[in-house]
């Protein structure tokens, strides 16, 4: 019997069809308007891109095992690191949490039956596929070797690779982000259940609100930039190319005006997940709810004012450099606020160390390092030395992988029972969480030292005295690789032989846990009315804790 097809009993006592069982034809998936089905399709597509990007990462680390450029031709290496960046950033990191977990959970968390614009939601998936397909065609044709930053005039005039095709893929993919962001904002404003006030929303929703703001305000700028590139190439109007009167630095300004806020698209949703995990696995209302909520908004707003900190050595005015450095330091404050509040939330809690919580604690450690090294890079005089070295590479991997990817994995584990109706293997979950943490640190911590020693990024070959640290890094990457492949295996296995998940296996108060696992297509039998505050764990919030304890006791006895 396929237990995911039905999901408990409806209000009238008859078996109820889950969103997974509601149609099994390809058509029922491809033309669905159900946010949960769209999220699952995103999960599969994004995972494919993540694995491809991971293979490129493996190639990079293997090449860097030896100082000489020997495993790969230099030309190939340049394409490999470019494509690693393009796939990971535009097709994995940016859509990961918002498009998968956000899509699945946002309506459930605020008690809605879907996103406000379900057709637009499906459209954004198709746009993602189209952009991804064009990019993949570009890669198959021969790839692109400009670095993910596409700096001019190399990208416009000198590179003989498929810049325009890949650029077009990224341009189109951008509209997917814009539509998703728009959809989230409209949904949060208009679809909240009765009683779900702004300050009763889970912080995951707040984080997605902030992310959406960045998506709809920032992404158009990168679209404009790509358009300007196309105009320059087609009509020979001097915009970025100095040979025809353009300014290559202008490209950097426009690129980073989007891409810096995009960095926050790649961390804010992760912070939202972590707020959920820390609070729920401590069974305690999050400390400083309003401060965490508004710090997300503050990060989103300040994120638009610090793009110049990518350009400290570009020849921009030193006064501009000083202003950008100052503003960058200001962004440190809301990030610090979050760290302290998360830590304080654990104080006097009732903490369990299930796999998602292990990921959340790993996130705190890694984001701490990622954030603090951000101060190194924000401090202009120091960052002149560090710019374009492995210090930068290590820093942004600590934030994006140590932050967003760890949060994403924690979130996937946490909500897996809700999404699939099955429990994964807790044993393997814990093992993989620890392997990821150890492997990640072993990979990227040596790169901070390499960076201060001066090893430039995007180098296929490097001086011999730097080999030892590079060997550590590659060794760590293989541990990390194993840690990341394991969830693919045991999560897939859980679909076949996993224990059937209860509706609320963790006994957590969020609305998403107050419907069946997996939920029915319309999410809730009766539209919920919220009478409790966010993260309220007591009996007042309507949780049947006594019943859950009893069931837990029985399961222990049976085992």
């Amino acid at each position, binding site marked *: 019997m396929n237990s995911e097809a039905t999901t408990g009993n409806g209000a009238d006592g008859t078996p109820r069809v889950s969103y997974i069982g509601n149609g099994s034809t390809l058509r029922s998936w491809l033309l669905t308007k159900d946010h949960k089905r769209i999220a699952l399709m995103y999960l599969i597509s994004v995972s494919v891109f993540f694995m491809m990007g991971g293979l490129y990462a493996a190639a990079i680390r293997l090449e860097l095992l030896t100082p000489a450029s020997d495993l790969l031709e230099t030309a190939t290496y340049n394409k490999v690191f470019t494509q690693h960046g393009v796939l990971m950033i535009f097709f994995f990191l940016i859509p990961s949490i918002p498009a998968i977990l956000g899509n699945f959970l946002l309506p459930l968390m605020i008690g809605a039956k879907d996103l406000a614009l379900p057709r637009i939601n499906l459209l954004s998936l198709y746009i993602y596929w189209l952009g991804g397909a064009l990019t993949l065609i570009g890669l198959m044709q021969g790839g692109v070797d400009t670095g993910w930053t596409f700096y001019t005039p190399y990208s416009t005039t000198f590179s003989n690779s498929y810049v325009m095709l890949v650029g077009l893929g990224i341009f189109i993919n951008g509209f997917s982000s814009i539509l998703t962001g728009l959809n989230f904002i409209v949904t949060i404003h208009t679809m909240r259940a009765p009683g779900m006030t702004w300050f009763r929303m889970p912080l995951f929703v707040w984080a997605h609100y902030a992310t959406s703001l960045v998506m709809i305000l920032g992404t158009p700028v990168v679209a404009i930039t790509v358009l300007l590139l196309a105009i320059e190439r087609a009509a020979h109007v001097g915009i970025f190319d100095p040979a025809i009167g353009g300014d*290559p630095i202008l490209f950097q300004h426009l690129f980073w005006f989007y891409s810096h806020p995009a960095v926050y698209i790649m961390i804010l949703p992760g912070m939202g997940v972590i707020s959920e995990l820390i609070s729920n696995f401590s*069974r305690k209302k999050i400390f400083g709810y309003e401060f965490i909520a508004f710090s997300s908004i503050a990060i989103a707003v300040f994120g638009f004012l610090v793009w110049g900190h990518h350009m400290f*050595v570009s020849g921009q005015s030193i006064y501009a450099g000083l202003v950008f450095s100052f503003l960058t330091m200001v962004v440190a404050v809301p990030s610090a606020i979050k760290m302290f509040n998360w830590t304080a939330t654990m104080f006097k809690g009732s903490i369990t160390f299930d796999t998602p919580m292990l990921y959340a604690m790993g996130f705190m450690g890694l984001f701490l390092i990622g954030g603090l090294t951000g101060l190194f890079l924000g401090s202009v005089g120091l960052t002149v030395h560090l710019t374009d070295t492995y210090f930068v590479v290590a820093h942004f991997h600590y934030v994006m992988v140590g932050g967003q990817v760890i949060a994403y994995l924690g979130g996937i584990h946490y909500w897996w029972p809700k999404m699939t109706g099955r429990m994964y293997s807790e044993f393997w979950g814990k093992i993989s969480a620890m392997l990821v943490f150890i492997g990640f640190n072993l990979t990227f911590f040596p790169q901070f030292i390499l960076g201060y020693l001066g090893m430039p990024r*995007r180098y296929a070959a490097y001086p011999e005295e730097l080999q030892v640290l590079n060997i550590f890094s590659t060794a760590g990457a293989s541990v990390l690789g194993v840690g990341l492949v394991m969830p693919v295996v045991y999560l897939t296995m859980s679909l076949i032989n996993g224990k059937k998940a209860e509706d609320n296996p963790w006994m957590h108060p969020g609305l998403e846990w107050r419907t069946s696992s997996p939920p029915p297509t319309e999410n809730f039998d009766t539209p919920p009315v919220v009478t409790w505050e966010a993260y309220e764990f007591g009996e007042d919030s309507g949780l049947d804790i006594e019943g859950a304890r009893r069931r837990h006791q029985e399961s222990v006895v049976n085992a």
Partner: protein
Amino acid sequence: MQNTSWIPMFPEAASTFAWQVDVLYFYLIAVSVAFSIPIVVAIFAFGIKYREREKFATPEEMHGSMVLEVTWSIIPFIVSMTIFLGGAIIYFQQYTPPDDAMQIYVVGKQWMWKIQHETGQREINELHVPVGRRVKLTMTTEDVLHNFDIPAFRTKADVVPGRYTYLWFEATKPGKYHLYCAEYCGLNHSGMIGSVIVMEQRDFDNWLSGNVSGQTPVEAGKDLFENKLGCASCHSGGQAARGAKLEGIFNTQVALVGGEKVLADDNYIRNSILNPAAQVVEGYQPIMPTFKGQVTEEQLNSLVAYIKSLSPNAAAAATAAKPAMAAPATPAAAKPASK
């Protein structure tokens, strides 16, 4: 091939910036440790002390604390401001070249560094400089972005097509140091490397005199100006000439047609050769043809150097920095070019 530092896995420090950057670096490490220890200890301590005692317990609810929130907002803010200030002070020095520095021209191209000394000597992928002297690099590129990066000096700067950027340093220790291109520039980016060789002044002077110098940039510029490009036919002859007077203009404010003023610096001179109609001097017609495509980056450097030499007062600072020994090195062509 490099010297090693007494701290393990720490880069050689060989310029006047290096110790400042290193101090800031260690300050930041101290700050990081000071913030991390309480947080990590708290996470572990809370994790052990408040681990689950009863399944699905409901711990007592706690309300936020304004005092705590304000405290842990203000302390990071103050600390981050000290980091900002420290960085700002160093940055200001790194990117404010002193007037009396020794001039060296750098032209980047895929995938090599072409360097010319003021006394005419050229080198490729190597830069010889004397210890204890301020050196200013005036840099541009023939193609894409590059970045002149000397980790042992703790400084670097992008090299941008179509304009001059500057880098300066004062080396403190003789030795051979890595020179990297730090801005991705295509196929052989990781091969665009070389060495900076810091020498005692006497060794440097010997090195200079042991190399064929050919024409100095100023001499080459004069030759281009007067003969090869024929600039002199319009630009000499005082106020009556068709072209603007160039004597004494460097580093002064020049009035333009339309009432604007512009500082006549390297970039202005360069632009006026390549794109003369853009900023025409008050009182002249926009009749000068462009020289874009007719002069190489190195010739442009020479022309700019020559035009600067026409302003003895402004250029005096640069000339004053020339060592007494460097002057006789110029006719070194007489000696056999031995290395």
